[in-house]
């Protein structure tokens, strides 16, 4: 096999392969004119020319994935679907001054104004499709028209992502690798699970993020900063990434290489950002609604862990606390101070405030300090090496740090790590391995979002196919066999860890069947009802009394994924600090 491949690759230059290489499209990045051609923020609205620029393989990916997404229209959808429908109704039927005050539904508007404008825009066609969609009091409307319409808007707005990723290929150093990475990002299981089944608009917003990163790559840093400011006003979770943007733009754009301030550039960037924020917040500022808006955006009333523990450091700490408690109870260790509230917290299992029984409790300020401290390390490094690659790595690490140590992190936030990390996947073997571990555990950690049996097969089959198609071609190019014994052992452990996911999935699938026969049917099945979204009704959360047995698969998933994600975090930190 090996021999054959090498022979065939020797003879392959005669072949034309559209899927991976299109010689006419392989433009080297060094082409300076290219940046101007593709890099302009307002790329010429040459639709016909642009359509001609799309290769057959790109059409293939777009059409096939769209068909699959169409088939997913009837799939499970979380409360986020109703959240967004309610926002359509709010923005359509209320004057702007009421947007951030309305509380007809429990799903109040809690995204920044650009997203509200975006919903306003979407609500106009919606009112033609079916006027009932935008009726404010028509709560939990779930006719086919609203499902088809909202699902279709997700697919349509995701074209921003497709466009940004397609632009990434043009002008990449190695287009054939960038093609794999772009395709893998467009087809990312995270987007399929979170956007097309669970329901959100991440594809659209990550499209803006990637567009902004693309501008940075193409040397148009002003546009990059502008787009990031726009993105922040769509969804404030991207603030996790803001420190890297701030340092990078300041160092690489506003300062000269020798460290002198370039006032012209600084002012233009500052103006651009201020303009964006004015466009977004201005109306509300004028109406004096800023405090109300901010209180909607930042509700500091949530616990350390989300219902289902996001697979981060706190998941490991919480799990360690649970284990220590058991140990303390069994061996009756006197020296340990056991917090009674923590004991009840463990029996409650998964929701509400997490209170530790053995380990000292964590306050929001602690998580904040740890996050900032870690980010500072990377930012200092970025300041010293303000290159594009370094910027993407620091960006990833900023998101990663927030995910690892943040307060009330949601598991969906892992996309903030996986998306920029993918751009670095093909840099070298070390980064590729990091990408593999983080992607596999990150995607798996999203699985509990879809707890319905019908979607179980979809998420597993799709993710498996995606992993094979992404990781294997890259692995063929990247993989280097470890040279020293410690690395061989580490390599083997990492492989073992990834193989362990098959067992974990088996356990998660089979456990409920066996648990059901042991636990009486009286146990509430509502447990899972709240694992699905950040918009869980607080009342529901507290009323649920789940059995520890039902929580076990979730906890195990969270802890197992956390191990991989923490390890990938350590890897990435070390690689960044040593190699960039």
């Amino acid at each position, binding site marked *: 096999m090996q021999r054959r491949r090498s022979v065939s690759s020797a003879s392959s230059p005669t072949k034309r392969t559209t899927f991976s290489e299109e010689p006419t499209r392989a433009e080297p990045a060094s082409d300076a004119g290219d940046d101007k051609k593709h890099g302009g923020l307002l790329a010429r609205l040459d639709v016909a020319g642009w359509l001609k620029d799309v290769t*057959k393989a790109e059409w293939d990916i777009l*059409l096939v994935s769209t068909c699959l997404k169409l088939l997913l229209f009837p799939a499970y959808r979380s409360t986020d679907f109703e959240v967004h429908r309610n926002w359509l109704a709010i923005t359509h039927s209320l004057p702007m001054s009421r947007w951030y005050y309305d509380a007809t539904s429990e799903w109040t508007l809690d995204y920044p104004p650009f997203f509200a404008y975006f919903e306003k825009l979407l609500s106009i066609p919606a009112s033609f499709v079916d006027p009932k969609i935008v009726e404010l009091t028509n709560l939990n409307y779930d006719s086919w028209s609203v499902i088809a319409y909202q699902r279709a808007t997700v697919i349509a707005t995701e074209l921003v992502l497709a466009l940004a990723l397609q632009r990434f290929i043009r002008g990449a150093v190695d287009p054939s690798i960038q093609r794999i990475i772009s395709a893998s990002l467009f087809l990312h299981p995270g987007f399929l699970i979170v956007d097309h089944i669970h329901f959100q608009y991440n594809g659209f917003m990550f499209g803006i993020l990637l567009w902004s990163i693309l501008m940075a790559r193409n040397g148009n840093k002003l546009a990059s900063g502008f787009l990031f400011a726009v993105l922040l006003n769509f969804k404030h979770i991207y603030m996790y990434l803001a420190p890297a943007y701030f340092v990078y733009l300041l160092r690489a754009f506003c300062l000269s290489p020798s460290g002198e301030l370039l006032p012209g550039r600084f002012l233009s960037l500052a103006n651009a950002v201020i303009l964006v924020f004015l466009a977004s917040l201005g109306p509300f500022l004028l109406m004096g609604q800023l405090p109300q808006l901010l209180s909607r955006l930042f509700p500091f009333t949530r616990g350390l862990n989300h219902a289902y523990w996001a697979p981060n450091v706190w998941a490991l700490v919480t799990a360690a606390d649970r284990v220590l408690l058991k140990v303390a109870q069994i061996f009756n260790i006197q020296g340990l101070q056991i917090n009674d509230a923590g004991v009840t917290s463990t029996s409650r299992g998964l929701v509400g405030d997490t209170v530790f029984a053995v380990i000292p409790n964590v306050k929001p300020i602690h998580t904040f300090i740890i996050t900032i401290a870690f980010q500072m390390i990377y930012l200092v490094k970025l300041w010293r090496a303000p290159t594009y690659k370094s910027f993407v790595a620091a960006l990833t690490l900023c998101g990663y740090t927030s995910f690892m140590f943040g307060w009330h992190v949601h598991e969906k936030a892992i996309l903030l790590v996986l998306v920029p990390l993918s751009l670095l996947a093909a840099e070298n073997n070390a980064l590729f391995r990091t990408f593999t571990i983080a992607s596999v555990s990150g995607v798996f950690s999203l699985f509990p979002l879809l707890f319905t049996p019908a979607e179980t097969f979809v998420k597993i089959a799709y993710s498996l196919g995606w992993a094979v198609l992404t990781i294997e071609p890259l692995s063929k190019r990247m993989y280097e066999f470890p040279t020293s014994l410690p690395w061989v052992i580490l390599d083997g452990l990492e492989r073992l860890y990834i193989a362990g996911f098959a067992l974990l999935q088996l356990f998660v699938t089979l456990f409920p069947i066996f648990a059901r026969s042991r636990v009486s049917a009286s146990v509430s099945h509502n447990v899972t009802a709240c694992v699905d979204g950040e918009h869980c009704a607080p009342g529901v959360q507290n009323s649920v009394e789940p059995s520890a047995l039902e929580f076990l698969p979730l906890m195990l998933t969270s802890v197992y994924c956390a191990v991989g994600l923490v390890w990938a975090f350590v890897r990435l930190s070390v690689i960044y600090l040593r190699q960039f």
Partner: protein
Amino acid sequence: MFATIPEAEKPRLTVAASSQSLSAEDHKNTEDTGMARRWTRWMHKQGLRHRVVSLVILFAALVKWCIGLGSYSGQGTPPMFGDYEAQRHWMELTIHLPIREWYTYDLKYWGLDYPPLTAYISWLCGIIGAWVDPSWFALDHSRGIETPASKIYMRATVLACDTLIYVPAIVFFVQSWQGNRSSKTQQVALLTLLLQPGLLLIDFGHFQYNTVMLGLTLTSVSCFAAGHDLLGAVAFVMSLGFKQMALYYAPAIGSYLLAKCLSLGARQGAQLFFQLAATTVATFALLFLPWLPPFAPLSAMLEPIGRIFPFQRGLFEDKVANFWCASNVVLKWRIWMNAPALIKLSAGLTAAGFLPAVVVMLYCGYRLGVASQTAQDLKEIPKPTSRPAPVLPLLPYALLTSSMSFFLFSFQVHEKTILVPLLPLTLLLSGASNNSFSFKLGALVNNVAVFSMWHLLKRDGLALQYLALLILWNRIIGHNPLRIRQKSLMDYLSITVYGICILLHVLETIVPPPSHLPDIYPVLNVLLSTPVFGITWLWSIKRTVEVSWGLGGLGSSSKAISMPPLPGADGLLPNGNPVKLTTPEGVTSSLGLSVGERAAGLRTRSLGHVQGKKSSLRSGSVSTEFD
């Protein structure tokens, strides 16, 4: 996995056979290839060829499951519901009732009317399902149950049957019928067959188990190609025993086996004939055992038989794109004739419809038998029965002719039954190059067949799935309905048909049907689809004759072909490559069958090669339209 030729050897071979379209397929300009080929090519280039088959099966399973997320026939329509409830009801009654009551229990409510294998499989599914949750199949109480969990279980049974029977059958088919094609071509064929939109929509959307019946028939056809006639006969009887629609194939299968007996000569032929007869009867007896003595009186057989062949029903139901329904617009058959006369007429027309295939097959088998007999007698070598009959290349066309004639002319046909003729047509399409007539016709008929089921699918709430599957499949095979590639009759025909299809869809959404013609859109649909199916039937007969001529089974020139077997004629050649076919005469194909036949006959052995030959001529700037 299927690779017979190392990649590296291809360029060399290509030079050796530059005129051959078969080996040129990798180097042809990529203009006319579909996504399936682009993707497999990319996979091979990435060194992932060993992953292609498993990924294709995984992707197909994903698509099937996603279709299943949608609604099914009769969802939320009490009191009778639809096919879904029928299948579920059979699981319910088979696990609760003694076998003798299966065909007699409460016939008004979806009484069992499929042959016993369906009942047995229903029983198995029911037993497993009842173990998971007994309420899904509680006798009488579970009627119309529509819980999400029971739906998932029912969908899972279809996917499981499909994965256990149809998918392996397709893999087996591709290996046995296209074994001498490149692995990429085989993988493309696999994708084409696995994602056939009509079948997926009906089985995984509407809800039926056609893949089992079709998979068993396909297995039997592949068994014939591999020379295992008895196994093939068993598989076909099981197919018949699963769903009586497999009867549409029976004339073709029967005449193939008979032709093989004929071609073997008197002694061996008779031996094989009796073996086949005994196997067939034994398999049938085994399937119907509970209704046969000593387990039941002989009259008990009438219960399943009477249910399986319901002649008391009408000539046709709903709006089906066959001869009767289409001509009914002008000719009011049911007023002119009584039911028995209609049954006779339809039986006569059906027989007349499939007779050409049967006659050609038998005559061709006989002629080839006689022709090679002289050569055999000279050498006094007994003919091996483990090789397929020389008329094997006729089999797909015969299957198509016979099933299409049943669809067009027989009694009590449903619109879903178009899946039966679609199978052989898609088999032919899967082996054809993108420019060939077979490919274009196959793609057109597949699309029109899905279109002909539009009103059924719309009623089931599967309009979105209908659209998605059509786009997906056409993109994958590389068929753009709205583009004229060559200025040929076929291209104009297909674009006209597609134009009318789209027009009808548009009209249906914006113009409500007039009150005195409420069925105008279904009728127009039938009037468009029927001629397309009719053309397919005629084309199939024409191809049967052409291929048999190519085999040398017709005409006097066939006597000149006898050649002594060449060395290496047993089994695969060292690199079993298709290019060998270009040598003038008598060398084997990788199927390992070739005792002295001329090259034309050999070429036709490979399914797609019949078309490949034509397109190679065409690419050699011969622009004459052959078909």
